């Protein structure tokens, strides 16, 4: 089956503005990312701030052009589509943001916010049908129909994120990129939103790209996990294999660093934190991106960047010293 979303050696970056005598400089943020995503599946993208995960998410939606490589939507490259066709195809590809309140226009009622995608993607729909669809989608995300008359400032964070999800699904998309959708929410609300996304996925066959820094949340929703470090994929694996044993030392360190509500386990981890910080993405190291913090690093790691290599159980990792799993 043609994957609903595919990235082939995708490289994305930004241009630093040039001066009078200097040419604009290209600064790559995401390097050579490849994956395929089928309908009904979730790809979890994990990494710390500055690893390029949000830039990757936006590039997948063709909001930032690919510098090298391709993004494919159902096998088609959005960069090749004419403007009008591209606009129509965007109905298939939606996004949910981290700050749910900031993502809603404060001067619009929720009804207007939610009917905007319909006006764009299904202009033939009558006003009455639009209202029905808005009421339907509000109900689907667990809000009553009278929310259509409210304004964003009247919502709690969890309610605002439900509206964000409603706006993303009202055009019946194939893919939703969720950029840290629960990190701004209270713990008791996070689980509600994750459950809603999983229910919608089961009902609508949605493919999700779930970007998060929290490996514990990603574990519950993802089928496949991709770990990024300084703009590069360092490990990619099916969920169960990954959580049983991450292959890359950075992935292992991330997993180890999420504090668990277990006093005995956390006491053992005290004093075990990984020292140092990652270098700036503007000045990446010559060798492995993790070499400056890696407990296993050798001279080779600081000089030669390890390639992403395949391992059994459909997983890949970029490390010179992976202990191959038994």
């Amino acid at each position, binding site marked *: 089956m043609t994957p609903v979303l595919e990235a082939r050696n995708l490289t994305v970056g930004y241009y630093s503005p040039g001066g009078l005598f200097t040419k604009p400089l290209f600064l790559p943020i995401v390097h050579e990312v490849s994956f395929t995503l089928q309908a009904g599946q979730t790809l979890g993208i994990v990494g*710390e*701030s500055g690893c390029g995960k949000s830039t990757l998410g936006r590039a997948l939606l063709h909001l930032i052009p690919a510098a090298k490589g391709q993004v494919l939507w159902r096998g088609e490259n959005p960069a090749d589509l004419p403007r009008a066709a591209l606009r129509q195809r965007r109905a298939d590809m939606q996004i949910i943001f981290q700050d749910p309140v900031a993502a809603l226009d404060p001067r619009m009622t929720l009804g207007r916010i939610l009917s905007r995608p319909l006006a764009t993607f299904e202009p033939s729909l009558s006003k009455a049908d639009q209202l029905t669809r808005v009421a339907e989608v509000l109900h689907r995300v667990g809000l009553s129909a009278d929310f259509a008359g409210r304004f964003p400032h009247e919502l*709690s*964070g*969890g*309610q605002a994120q439900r509206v964000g999800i409603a706006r993303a699904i009202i055009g019946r998309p194939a893919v939703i990129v969720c950029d840290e959708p629960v990190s701004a929410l*209270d*713990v*008791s*609300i*996070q*689980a*509600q939103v*994750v*459950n809603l996304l*999983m*229910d919608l996925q089961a009902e609508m066959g949605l493919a999700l790209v779930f970007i998060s*820094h*929290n*490996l*514990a*949340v990603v*574990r*519950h929703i993802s089928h496949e996990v991709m770990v990024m470090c300084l703009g590069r994929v360092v490990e990619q694996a099916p969920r169960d294999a990954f*959580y049983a044993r991450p292959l890359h030392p950075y992935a292992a*360190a*991330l*997993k*180890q*660093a*999420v*504090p*668990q*509500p*277990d*006093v*005995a*386990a*956390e006491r053992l*981890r*005290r*004093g*075990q*934190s*990984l*020292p140092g*910080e990652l270098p700036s993405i503007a000045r990446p190291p010559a060798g492995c991106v993790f070499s400056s*913090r890696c407990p296993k690093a050798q001279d080779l790691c600081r000089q030669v960047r390890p390639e992403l290599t395949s391992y059994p159980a459909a997983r890949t990792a970029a490390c010179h010293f992976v202990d191959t799993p038994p």
Partner: protein
Amino acid sequence: MACETPLTQMNANLLSLRDLSVHFAHRGGQTTVVDRVSLDLAAGQVLGIVGESGSGKSQLLFSLMGLLAGNGRASGRALFEGVDLLSLPPKALDRLRGASLSMIFQDPMTSLNPYTRIGDQLAEGLIHHQAVPRAQALAEAVRMLDRVRIPDAARAARRYPHEFSGGMRQRVMIAMALLVKPKLLLADEPTTALDVTIQAQVLDLMSEIASETGTAILFVTHDLGVVARICDRVAVLYGGRIMEDGPAETMLTSPAHPYARGLLATTPRMDDALTPRLPTIAGTPRSGGAMLPSCPFAPRCGARLPACDTMPPLRPFGPERRLACHLQGET
């Protein structure tokens, strides 16, 4: 109003809160965000205050430091080494704040002065509050920066806040707070804005320094994982009231209050069973509004009884534990 639960060992404690309440006046009247909280903290102990948004956990800290907004007012008593912080004149409170009490805020960027070099900001506390000569204060600042593992501390002291990463700034804040060797450190979600591997470093650093200097920490957080990592004891706050408190280990292995149980169940873990649906707590956290006569958690509680229309008192429940729930004894 009389204290609901008399606590023992009044004098052994560094900090004793007795019926501490925080109110905000506004046009419609008055909102109570912290309601009659009584807690004790011994020297060298780390006490976690856990709650969601609107639980009053940050306002509780602010009231101790005299940092409530203009329309805020604290009542009750907050005895710090026997001195009531709430009734101290501003000058006397200011002397305490520099010498024995420090605070770390959630956002390290907005808490540092962008126009002042890091070293000068750190030294200011010593110069102002402890009359340490400037050169000596700067030298101590550099030593402290080195202590919190800021690389090349002598040079870093001459830099400005924007030249540091988020994790480094938070370590600078910790250095600043600990430089005056406070007896009590108030920490308001100090690691929430940090990446997980940096959070682990900062938590390690805080436990290490606290155990060395005997500094007690009142640690506000929403993350039960962080509680497990750093806290000795924990109090769970909901709607401005303590629902349950006790040793961190007991609370995390056998929480008694339905809210505490819900909070633990909804915290995703790396090793729990993968289910098609995560456990949730229905409804949304309380925000603002008048204090309910009922238990604040009653509208969301799955185990609600008719008795829950009145607020249950906080009563002793097992060794070193207290619980405010009518279900007590029935579960």
